[in-house]
């Protein structure tokens, strides 16, 4: 019982209090986690299509950060805060272009090498 009181009045209680009112830092941490998951996917997977999907995840984490910062700056009365959302639109455009080109390359590669495993695509290796 004493332990329980100590825990509820200690750091855990403040953490619970903070969890009930998520602020900018929570959004940034979610963005960071998604970014790391994307990086891990790029570094560990062998399938080139899944690597492309991980890149989309990374771009989306960046978008989440842009939007969260834009909202925070709106709340502090910054007149140029909407620029974050404009940036997010351009990130989405670039991601779409990147997916179109990347998947074109995947198809051309599959036609020539008959593989989608990145460790078997070593034509440029000396």
């Amino acid at each position: 019982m004493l332990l329980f009181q100590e825990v509820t009045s200690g750091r855990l209680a403040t953490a619970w209090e903070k969890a009930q009112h998520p602020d900018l830092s929570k959004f940034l941490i979610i963005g960071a986690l998604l970014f790391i998951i994307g990086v891990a996917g790029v570094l560990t997977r062998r399938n080139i299509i899944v690597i492309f999907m991980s890149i989309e995840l990374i771009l989306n984490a960046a978008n989440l950060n842009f939007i969260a910062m834009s909202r925070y700056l709106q709340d502090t009365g910054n007149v140029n805060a909407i620029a974050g959302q404009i940036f997010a639109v351009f990130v989405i455009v670039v991601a779409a272009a990147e997916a179109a080109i990347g998947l074109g390359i995947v198809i051309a590669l599959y036609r020539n090498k008959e593989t989608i495993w990145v460790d078997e695509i070593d034509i440029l290796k000396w």
Partner: protein
Amino acid sequence: MILSGWETVFFWVFSIAAIFAGLLTVMARNTIHSALFLISSLVSIAALFILLHAEFIAGVQILVYVGGVMVLFLSVIMLVNVGSEERGSEEIFNRPRQVTTSVIFCALLIAGLIYAVNEGYRGFEKRDVDKIQMAAAARQNREQALDQSATGASRMTSDTQSLGGSLYRYGSLPFEIASVLLLVAIVGSVMLARTLKQEAAVDDVDPDVLQKEVALDPELAEVQSEPTA
């Protein structure tokens, strides 16, 4: 920007959903499953955008990503043969040593990022505490002045209006450049995805290369001799 009440519940539900779906995207054995998990992750992130009062970006995210990019991904997965991966005869990750190194790297990165975000945000809070209170009052006044929606449950936002205004006022040159970029991407992907036969048909292959290839595959010569329509 401090959420409260039901917004908090939705925040935790959608952020945990986004992270789990992201993890499963990276770990799923079947590539189609990866794509579907990525779709659910993107939809959860779109819900987070709505919580952040960026309704237009949320709509664009669902239209462009889920409706466009992911459909492209799914059709490419169907074009390439991933059967060996699904049957389990192929390893889906790199060699163990590479995986261990990259996981350690990612763990260090995440520890650093969380520490930096927490420390940095504490500084932000201290600096902006007066501004936030003043701007919150101003914002509440502005929101009271907005039109009621049809059901009366909420008010119409002016987010899309202000985003569109700023996009054309300050970002019109990048906007035009982005349209050229998309055009280049379309032309480039059509170019990349052509077969040798299609390239020969429009006379777009180096003559020396074509001679070598014709020696291997006589059908190519016929394609080339046909008049292009």
